[in-house]
C-alpha cells in the first residue's frame, strides 16, 4: 500500500541529503511535496494540514540545533510525526472474564465486513478459541448465505434467523452462551452514515450485545470521507479499532493515518487477500517504517517464523552451507515462501524491491507454472540440471504443459541465481564448516540485524543504479539487464549485501 508514499518521500529525502544546508524555501518545498504525497495517498485534507503545521512548527523550533543537518532534522521530524500518528501498541484482544467475548463489525456498504467476519472466525479459532458467527446483515440479499459458506470454510458455526438484526444479535449471544462458544462475532449490514434509522439500528444492536470490541471495517481504497465515516461510527458506537481491507491492492491507504489521527483508534487487523488466511493483526508501528521506505521486514520475518517449516529451513541452510543449492531446494523453498501469503504481498513487504518487481504482478498461478516445470523433472535432473538435453527438455515441457522455451528460461535463470548466491554460500559454508554442527543454532554469522541490513542494502543497490539500469526507456523491467545483474558482480549489489552481513568479499571488490 504505502509504497508510493514512501517512494515519494525517498525522492524528496534523497534531494535533502544531497544538500548541505536547508533554506527556508527548501523547507517549504519539502512541505509542499509532502503535502502532495499525503493527499495523493488519500490522507484526509484536514489531517494533512494539521500534520504540516506541526512539522513546520517543529522545524522552526529545531533550527537552533547544531547536532543534525537541517535536512536530517526535517526527515526526523516527519518520521516522528508519522510514527506519532500511526504508532502505539498493536491491539491485543483481552478476552472477557465472562464469555463470550463479543466482537461487533460495522461499516459502509461493500467494505468487506462479511468476509472479515469469516476471517476473524478463522483467526480466533487458530488462537484456540471457539467462535460463533452471527449473521445480522438481513439487508443485502444473500449476505447470511455468504456468511454461512465462509463459516463452513473456516470451521466456525454460524447463527442467524430471518427476524430483525437486533433480535438476531440478542439471540446469537444467548446461543453462544448456551453452546459455550467463547467468542461471538457479529456481522452487520453496511450502512451510510447519513441514514439515521440505520445508524440507530446499529446502535441498538450494540446496546443489545454489549460488544467487548467494536471494529469499523474500512476499505483501504477509501478517499477523503474516511474521516467523516469513522467519526460518525465512532459517535454512534464508540469504536475500539479499525479493520483495513483490500490492502492487497495498490491503494495507498491514507485512511489508516487519517482515522488514527482523528478518532484515535488504531488499525487492529489488516485483510490482504480474498483467501481466509490473508488476514492478520496490523502492526501500526511497522507501518510508519514502511511509509519511510524501510520496508516491512519485521512482518516478513514474523511470517517466515510462523510458516516456514523448521526442517525445511534447516535443509536449506545445510544446502547453503554445503555450497549446493539445487532446483529441488528451490522448489522446496518456493513452497515455504508461498505459505507466507500471496507472493505479491510478500514482495510488497520487502524493502528495496525495485518498483518494477513490486508491480510486476507476480501471480501465484505463474509460480505454479515454474513449479510444474520443476516437478516434471526427475530428482536427478533437479540436482543436476546440466543433464537436461533436448529430449529431456521436451519431456519436461510436455509433462508440465509448457514450452521448451519456458524450460530453457527457467534453467538459465536458475543458473544465474546459483551464480548470484555462490559467494554467499561459500562464505556461510566456510564459517560453519569450522566445527559447528550442521544446521545448528548460531551456525554461520548471519545475524537478524545483519539480515535486515542486508535487505536494506538491496535498496541501496537500487539507489546506486544497480537496479536502475534495469529499466528500459519505457520504464519497464528489461529482462536482459536483469539477467546481467543476476550474474555475479552486478554493480555493487552483492558486495554491499555481503559487507553489511559482515562477510568478506571473495576475490575482486566491486568498488
Amino acid at each position, binding site marked *: 500500500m504505502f509504497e508510493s508514499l514512501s517512494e515519494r518521500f525517498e525522492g524528496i529525502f534523497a534531494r535533502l541529503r544531497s544538500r548541505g544546508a536547508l533554506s527556508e524555501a527548501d523547507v517549504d518545498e519539502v512541505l509542499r511535496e509532502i503535502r502532495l504525497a499525503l*493527499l495523493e495517498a*488519500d490522507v484526509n485534507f484536514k489531517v494533512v494540514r494539521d500534520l504540516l503545521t506541526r512539522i513546520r512548527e517543529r522545524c522552526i523550533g529545531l533550527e537552533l540545533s547544531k547536532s543534525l543537518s537541517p535536512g536530517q532534522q526535517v526527515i526526523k521530524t516527519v518520521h516522528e510525526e508519522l510514527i506519532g500518528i500511526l504508532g502505539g501498541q498493536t491491539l491485543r484482544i483481552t478476552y472477557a472474564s465472562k464469555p463470550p467475548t463479543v466482537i461487533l463489525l460495522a461499516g459502509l456498504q461493500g467494505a468487506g465486513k462479511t468476509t472479515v467476519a469469516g476471517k476473524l472466525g478463522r483467526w480466533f479459532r487458530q488462537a484456540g478459541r471457539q467462535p460463533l458467527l452471527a449473521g445480522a446483515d438481513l439487508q443485502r440479499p444473500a449476505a447470511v448465505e455468504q456468511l454461512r459458506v465462509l463459516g463452513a470454510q473456516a470451521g466456525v458455526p454460524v447463527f442467524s434467523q430471518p427476524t430483525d438484526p437486533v433480535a438476531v444479535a440478542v439471540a446469537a449471544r444467548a446461543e453462544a452462551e448456551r453452546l459455550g462458544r467463547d467468542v461471538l462475532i457479529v456481522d452487520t449490514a453496511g450502512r*451510510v452514515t447519513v441514514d439515521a434509522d440505520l445508524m440507530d439500528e446499529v446502535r441498538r444492536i450494540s446496546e443489545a450485545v454489549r460488544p467487548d470490541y467494536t471494529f469499523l471495517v474500512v476499505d483501504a481504497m477509501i*478517499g477523503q470521507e474516511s474521516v467523516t465515516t469513522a467519526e460518525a461510527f465512532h459517535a454512534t458506537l464508540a469504536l475500539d479499532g479499525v479493520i483495513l481491507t483490500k490492502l492487497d491492492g*495498490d491503494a495507498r491507504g491514507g485512511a489508516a493515518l487519517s482515522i488514527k489521527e482523528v478518532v484515535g483508534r488504531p488499525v487492529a487487523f489488516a485483510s490482504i487477500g480474498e483467501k481466509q488466511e490473508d488476514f492478520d493483526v496490523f502492526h501500526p508501528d511497522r507501518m510508519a517504517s514502511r511509509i519511510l521506505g524501510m520496508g516491512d521486514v519485521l512482518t516478513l520475518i514474523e511470517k517466515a*517464523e510462523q510458516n516456514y517449516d523448521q526442517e525445511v529451513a534447516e535443509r536449506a541452510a545445510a544446502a547453503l552451507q554445503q555450497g549446493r543449492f539445487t532446483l529441488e531446494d528451490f522448489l522446496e523453498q518456493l513452497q515455504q515462501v508461498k505459505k507466507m501469503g500471496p507472493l505479491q504481498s510478500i*514482495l510488497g513487504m520487502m524493502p528495496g524491491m525495485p518498483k518494477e518487481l513490486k508491480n510486476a504482478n507476480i*501471480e501465484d498461478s505463474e509460480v505454479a507454472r515454474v513449479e510444474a516445470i520443476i516437478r516434471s523433472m526427475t530428482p536427478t535432473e533437479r540436482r543436476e540440471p546440466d543433464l537436461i538435453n533436448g529430449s529431456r527438455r521436451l519431456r519436461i515441457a510436455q509433462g508440465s504443459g509448457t514450452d521448451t522455451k*519456458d524450460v530453457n528460461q527457467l534453467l538459465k535463470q536458475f543458473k544465474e541465481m546459483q551464480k548470484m548466491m555462490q559467494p554467499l554460500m561459500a562464505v556461510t559454508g566456510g564459517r560453519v564448516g569450522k566445527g559447528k554442527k550442521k544446521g545448528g543454532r548460531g551456525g554461520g554469522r548471519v545475524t537478524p540485524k545483519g539480515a535486515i541490513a542486508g535487505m536494506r542494502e538491496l535498496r541501496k543497490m537500487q539507489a546506486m543504479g544497480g537496479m536502475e539500469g534495469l529499466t528500459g526507456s519505457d520504464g519497464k523491467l528489461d529482462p536482459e539487464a536483469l539477467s546481467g545483474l543476476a550474474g555475479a558482480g552486478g554493480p555493487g549489489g552483492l558486495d554491499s549485501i555481503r559487507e553489511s552481513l559482515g562477510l568478506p568479499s571473495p576475490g575482486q571488490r566491486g568498488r
Partner: protein
Amino acid sequence: MTLVVVVVLLAVFVMVVGGAVLVRSRRYPELEPPDIEAAAEPLLAADHDRLPPPVVTPEEAAAVEAEALGLPEPPPAPGRPRIRDRLGKARGLITGYVGSVLSRSSIDDSSWDDIEEALIRADVGVATTGTLIDNLRQRVKSDSLDTPEQLLSALRDQLKADLAVEDRRLHLAETGTNVWLFVGVNGVGKTTTIGKLGLRRAAEGNRVVMAAGDTFRAAAAEQLQTWAERVGADLVRGAEGGDPGAVVFDAVQRAAARGADLVLADTAGRLHTKVNLMEELRKVHRVAQREPGVVSEVLLVIDATTGQNGLTQAREFAEAVGVTGVVLTKLDGTAKGGIVLAIQAELGIPVKLVGVGEGPEDLIDFDPDEFVDALFAA
C-alpha cells in the same frame, strides 16, 4: 532464529530472481500456457456449424432456473429520483466552502484555497484539481471576473464543461444479442446495479437475462438470484468456482433462444492489480463477444467513497476490457464521488449511471448539470 533469517534472505533471492523469471515470462506473450478456453476459441471462430456444445456442465445447466420461460408481469415504471433529492443531506461540506467564498468581498488567495480544498475533499484529486484551478484562473483573468459570485458560477460552468460528453446513453447494437458487462473491484455495487438496471429495463418492456458471472464469491449467485426474482428477469448461473465465461456464454445462448433483448452480465469483484483475474475478465469479455453476443457496454462500477485509487482502477479496467462508461454508486452517503472528474479528465470515460441507495429504484441517469448543482446546493 538465525536459521530462519538465513532462509528469509534466501527467500529474498528466490523471489528477486524467481520474480525475474516470472517477469521475463510475462514479457513473452507466446509463452502463455495452453488452456482449454483458448484452444476452443479458434474452432468456434472458424466454423459455427460445428459448434461444440456450450461450455456448461449438466449440473450448471440444471441449476439454471427452468421455469423462467414465462416472465412475470414487468413491474410498474419506478418514479426516478433525482440526484438532488438524494444528495441534499450530505452536501454540507461543499456548501461550507461556498459560504466561505461568498463571505468575502472579492476574489483573493483564500478564495482559491477554499476552492482547492473543496475539490480535494470531494476526492477530485490533486492533479485534476490543479488543472481545474489553472483553467479557472485563466477564465477569471480573461473574463475579468471580480466578484465571488462570478467565481463560483465560473467554477460550476467549468465543472459542467469538464463532465460534458456528446453521448452518455447506454448503447444497444441493432443486431445480435446485446451484453452489458459489469466490472469493478470488490464490493463496489456491481450486482446491486444489475438488479436495479434489470428492473428498469423490465419496466420499459424489455426481456432481460442476468448472468451470474461471479462464480467466485460465496453466495454471489444467490444474491443476483434474489434480484432476478425481484425484478422478474431470467437468471443463468453456473457451478460455484466454475468458469465465468461459460456462464456468460450460456446466458447469451439462452437470451438468443428466447428472443430476450439484453444480457446483464455480473462478474466477480477483482482488484485491478491481479493479473490472472484481469486475464480471466478479458476472457469473459471475449466469450461474451462470440456470436450472437455483442458486448455493447462495459460498465465500470466505482464506489463514490473511492479515493485516488479509482483512477488507477479505471485505467486498468479500461486497458483490459475497454470500459465504455462508469456507474457511480453510493452517492447517497457523504462521499462526493469527485474521482469521476479525474476519470473523465484523464481517460475520457463518462459516467452513465448513478446509484443512490440499495433499493430497486435507486438508480438514475447521470446528469452533469444536476451533479454539479447538487454539489453546490445549499
